[in-house]
């Protein structure tokens, strides 16, 4: 992990948060390196905001230790943690102009008038909104307001910026534009960023590292590539990208080669990272883009018929219904002269055994 090579900006040690009977966050260990862009990704209620607010100091942990920039901050009040935060609803002061809003954190730091003027000017330049300095936040569009709240955050150069779904209220186009803008600021300023989202595409686009949360726990963490290509659980595989999951029981040959016995047949698969026992239940993951429609019998494959085919521009998606009633998704590149697949046509979904991945079965419930 990157965290071990560079000094940590944030370190959570066994941090947990309970609300009465609700365990919002189970003991979490997490380390964020200086200059890293980390995304907290997870479904609603998985504890992302809780984790972020614990770091910001808006709530205190039920147990564990929080270290920020080498200093124990577990009980430090929010206003002494020296960090920045961008809120989903922008949280701009409605009674102050854009200039006054951005100047606020500088006034807190008792900078001279001249210096405040210079810095606010620079920040407005950076987000290309110099012309709205004298307006009230209410006189700006949602995207502009969010850029102002970003400027208010970077103007005082905090070492760490926390963002809780900052782009949630924006439309798709604006969101993509802002994602690039935030990435650019991160690259230019070298600030450590912890970004909360429940949008997997946003997480894949922006992050150095994704921390995937599930039910108040960290399910898996790693680079976007790691999470996409080497998910460790069914939850990870399903949350990021789309996936074909075939349940069965593990079979280990005399030469140690793994295979999975399923209702659809026996499929060879690469050895899992964590060894499994023969006879143990497991799930075989094959990404749709690693499956293809095959005309002739192939070593690994499932027979079925096409239920639907949809064209997504550069790619085509086939939904294949198998003999046992389960369905598979196949994604192929769309090329001129591609043979058409007809609804109801009998086909064979095939894949290279090395593209399969054995996962432990999803916990019941």
């Amino acid at each position, binding site marked *: 992990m990157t965290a071990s090579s560079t000094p940590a900006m944030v370190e959570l040690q066994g941090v947990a948060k309970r609300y009465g009977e609700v365990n919002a966050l189970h003991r979490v260990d997490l380390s964020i390196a200086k200059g890293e862009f980390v995304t907290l990704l997870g479904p609603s209620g998985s504890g992302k905001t809780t984790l972020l607010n614990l770091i910001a*100091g808006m709530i205190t942990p039920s147990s564990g230790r929080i270290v920020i920039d080498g200093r124990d901050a577990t009980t430090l009040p929010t206003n002494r943690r020296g960090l920045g935060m961008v809120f989903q609803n922008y*949280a701009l*002061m409605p009674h102050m102009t854009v200039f006054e809003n951005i100047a606020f954190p500088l006034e807190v730091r008792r900078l001279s008038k001249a210096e405040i003027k210079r810095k606010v000017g620079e920040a407005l330049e950076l987000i290309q909104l110099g012309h709205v300095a004298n307006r009230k936040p209410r006189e700006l569009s949602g995207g502009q307001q969010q850029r102002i709240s970003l400027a208010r955050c970077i103007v*005082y150069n905090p070492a760490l910026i926390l963002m809780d779904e900052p782009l949630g209220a924006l439309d798709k186009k604006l969101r993509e534009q802002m994602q690039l803008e935030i990435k650019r600021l991160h690259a230019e300023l070298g600030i450590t960023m912890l970004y909360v989202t429940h949008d997997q595409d946003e997480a894949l686009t922006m992050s150095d590292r994704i921390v995937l949360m599930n039910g108040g726990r960290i399910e898996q963490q790693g680079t976007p590539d790691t999470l996409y290509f080497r998910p460790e659980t069914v939850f990870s595989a399903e949350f990021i990208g789309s996936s074909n999951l075939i349940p069965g029981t593990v079979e280990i040959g005399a030469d140690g080669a793994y295979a999975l016995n399923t209702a659809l047949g026996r499929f060879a698969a690469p050895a899992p990272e964590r060894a499994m026992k023969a006879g143990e239940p497991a799930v075989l993951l094959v990404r749709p883009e690693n499956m293809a429609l095959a005309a002739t019998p192939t070593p690994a494959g499932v027979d079925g018929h096409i239920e639907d085919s949809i064209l997504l521009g550069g790619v085509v998606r086939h939904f294949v219904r198998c003999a046992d009633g389960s369905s598979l998704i196949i994604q192929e590149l769309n090329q001129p002269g591609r043979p058409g697949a007809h609804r109801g046509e009998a086909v064979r979904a095939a894949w290279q055994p090395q593209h399969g991945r054995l996962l432990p079965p999803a916990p019941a419930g």
Partner: protein
Amino acid sequence: MAQSSAHSSSASDLSPWTALLLLAPLTAVMLLILIYPLGLTVWTSLYNGRFSFDAYVELASSTLFLRVLRNTFEIAIGGTLVSLLFGYPVALHLAAQPPRKRTAYLIMVMLPFWTSILVKSFALVAVFGNQGLINQFLGVVSGGTLNVPMMFNRVGVILGMINFLLPFMILSILGSLLALDRRLILAAETMGAGPLRIFWKITLPLSLPGVLAGVLINVTLSIGMYITPALLGGRQDMMVANLVDFYTRQTLDWTAASATAVALLILSGLLVALLGKVRGASGLAGAGA
């Protein structure tokens, strides 16, 4: 009520507008108990055997009226300021409470409403009077040398008044404070702002609409105050309403009484308009949302 039915039947004869019909009883009641007496008062102030503005001219040159008028404004503004001074911290504290606790505290704030103003005034005498709790205590502590007169003077009037004014002030300020987005405070905290700066730069400016509403209500309520200055004030603390009472019951000068009452009405109307303007301007400044 005879007038009411006559009025509504004529309205229904004219048209099938049910809205008008439904409004008719209320309109009649308002005519009967507000507009008619008011008109009568204005009439009495202008007509005394013949039609003239003499009563107003006399009023404008009467030192008694001018002194009473000054008293009235001093007491009304003073009482309002004291009520603001005590009310703001209470509202601030209430806003910080969890909802259930806040409801309990609010009941305590509203309690004075359910007590007769007479009873409250006598209760105040029992606490603040020369023989009251506080002075008895001071007497014991100082060996009988210390006695602070707090009743039947300016202090007494203000004490009695804020007892009545405070709930209005607290409720209007609380409304503004509860409408304040908590995330603004959290945002300010993450930027490093301490509690004092947050109060001066965020909480106070954003609660100004409530403050102005509270001040407006307090000033209008206290300007027409009658029982409190009569019971708890001294001879020097006569307010305009007491002067009206003096003219009607002591000197039986109905023309002067009417003119005084109309003058009071106009003055408080002007004050309300003025404060309303200030409030409207601050609302436009965006402090509302």
